[in-house]
């Protein structure tokens, strides 16, 4: 808990960092753009170099927006899962939701290989990918939900989540074995994660999905706070636990599923960022933690994207590797700090 003045300083610093990183993410890339030109173009719409307009509007802004919204979505869905399962190591990735999404996409890309290459699918195609990823992640979430009603021990659910994830990976392996080369490559590139492959048209699908998921989560703040003390207490205080849990799982599926569909499975953001937010804001109240996690999620993923294309690299590194390298130390720190991994 901080005073109002301290709070204001923290929030404005984070927003400032977010804006700076957003600009940096636009400036940096395989072609280095002069800072002044970028700012001028963004704020006035004019530039002496017309090719900059193409680069910025067709590639850099979509990529930066994707990083921003993927950061929002993954970290917020991770926070929700940690609260619902009351487990600091929960997250969309650990519970196998991303694996489920990858199963959906694998089935679509490789199973239904009568379609053309993924990148050539238009707006309707975007919807089918999002739908496939949603259905995949929804399936895993549904299984976890059934188990979580029957099994009380939260570690059991976590282990089962990992098992579901592995089972999905096994099915994906079989699909890979039987699919043709171009489909296989399309899928493997998808699994490496990429923020740069999302076009402006695709953003028209991605951003609304994420925004709906985020709005749902913000409407669930009160329920999430009640769930901090466990479902029994939440119920005794008048919360409709089943409905709230369903809505939380639905929004998580929407957030993590959509991002995974377009960018591939991006790991560790969902687990690590909520903990960074807890360290920064020192509270468990979702009214602060939720927007805080969202902001920090945007910051961390923009930063990861910037690192993945540090000047001098012709090609960008897979975003998944960068987020893992940033996230894993945080997760290790949680395990060492919390010897009893029992509560969030």
């Amino acid at each position, binding site marked *: *808990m901080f005073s109002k003045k301290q709070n204001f300083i923290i929030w404005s610093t984070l927003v400032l960092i977010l804006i700076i990183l957003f600009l940096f993410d636009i400036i940096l890339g395989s072609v280095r753009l002069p800072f002044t030109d970028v700012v001028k173009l963004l704020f006035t719409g004019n530039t002496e170099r017309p090719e900059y307009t193409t680069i910025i509007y067709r590639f850099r802004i979509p990529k930066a927006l994707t990083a921003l919204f993927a950061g929002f979505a993954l970290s917020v869905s991770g926070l929700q899962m940690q609260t619902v399962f009351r487990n600091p190591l929960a997250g969309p990735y650990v519970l196998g939701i991303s694996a489920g999404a990858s199963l959906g996409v694998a089935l679509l890309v490789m199973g239904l290989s009568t379609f053309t290459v993924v990148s050539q699918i238009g707006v309707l195609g975007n919807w089918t990918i999002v739908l496939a990823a949603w259905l995949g992640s929804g399936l895993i979430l549904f299984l976890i939900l059934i188990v979580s009603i029957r099994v009380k021990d939260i570690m059991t659910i976590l282990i089962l989540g990992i098992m579901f994830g592995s089972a999905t990976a096994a099915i994906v392996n079989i699909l890979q074995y039987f699919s043709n080369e171009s489909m296989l490559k399309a899928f493997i590139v998808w699994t490496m994660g990429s923020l740069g492959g999302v076009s402006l048209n695709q953003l028209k699908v991605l951003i609304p999905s994420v925004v709906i998921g985020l709005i749902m989560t913000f409407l669930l*703040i009160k329920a999430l706070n*009640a769930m901090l003390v466990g479902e029994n207490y939440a119920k005794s205080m*008048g*919360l409709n636990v089943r409905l709230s849990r369903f809505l939380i799982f639905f929004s998580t599926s929407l957030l993590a599923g959509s991002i995974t569909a377009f960018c591939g499975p991006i790991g560790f953001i969902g687990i690590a960022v909520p903990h960074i937010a*807890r360290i920064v804001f020192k509270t*468990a109240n979702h009214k602060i933690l939720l927007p805080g996690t969202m902001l920090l999620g945007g910051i961390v993923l923009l930063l990861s994207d910037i690192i993945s294309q540090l000047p001098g690299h012709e090609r960008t590194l897979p975003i998944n590797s960068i987020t893992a390298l940033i996230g894993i130390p945080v997760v290790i720190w949680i395990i060492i700090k919390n010897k009893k991994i029992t509560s969030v």
Partner: protein
Amino acid sequence: MKEEGDILSINHLEIGYPVKGNSNYILYRDINLCGKSGELIALVGKNGIGKSTLLRNISGLQSSLNGTINYFDKQKQDYTRADFARMISFVSTEIVNVTNLNVFDLVSLGRFPHTNWLGKLTIEDINKSAQALEMVGMSSFARKNLNEISDGERQRVMIARTLAQDTKLIILDEPTAFLDLPNKYEIIHLLNKLSKEEDKTIIFSTHDLNIAIQEADKIWLMLDDKVEEGAPEDLILDETFNKIFEKSNLRFDKIKGDFKMQKMHQCKIGLIGEGPHYTWTKKALERLNFKVEKGNDSIQYIKIDKENNFGKWTLLDDENKHEFNSIYDLSIYLKIQTGLPRGRQKN
């Protein structure tokens, strides 16, 4: 049966667990109990008999199999979720420990059924939460984190949360389970005070019968096939308490108000003395399986003398005389004298 002034009345309640297939797993078939305003009620019974299940049924966390529970004049289904939560609150045995959640935040969570959809705390909500903390004597802990306070303090905070919830009925499942003796007394005493001063009906389950007898207005006694209710004193006088542990050697001592293991006394011993020294020496001898006969010096006997508040124990029989400075020394001698194990001794 329903009487005037009953806040809670339980009629022909059947509790247990539904089992897949045909028959349910039934703990009790016909529970009839009631609670009035301002009453502190202790739910007593042995482990695993169904205390938690009954409390979960009353607090609406679990559905009963049959029968009715009336809260005021209505049943649970006649209330909305929020109205029900404004009428009854619950403290479970679960230890709540959330990183970064401070005491005040936890207590103000109790305002959940009173706040708007965003959970925004109004000035009234903040005041009520602060008052709740004050009532349990935890005001100075408001900004502490939950993992920085002791079990006794945490239990007070959990009680404050129910006070913030502002309900007429409060249900607590073993609120004294993890506490040391002074804390047990303090918590139950606090519940008694709250039931009287705030005019609440508080129901708690416990294994601490001594405390329950001292503080509770009424006891709900869970026996093997039925649940009895009554003032603790009534249950003592009509020997209902003895039925709790019918199968063991534990018997309720009507005079002392405490349970005691029934033992087969093996050897007789005389004891001469008075005051607390006499009482505690007698207890020690009984623990060693002696049947103590007061003032009998015709058999082996012990005489207690007091010198400047220090006791001196003299063991006398036909020919020998031994002196001891503590009960412990005396008991060691007696153990050697009679030989261990004691089971083989005869009169």
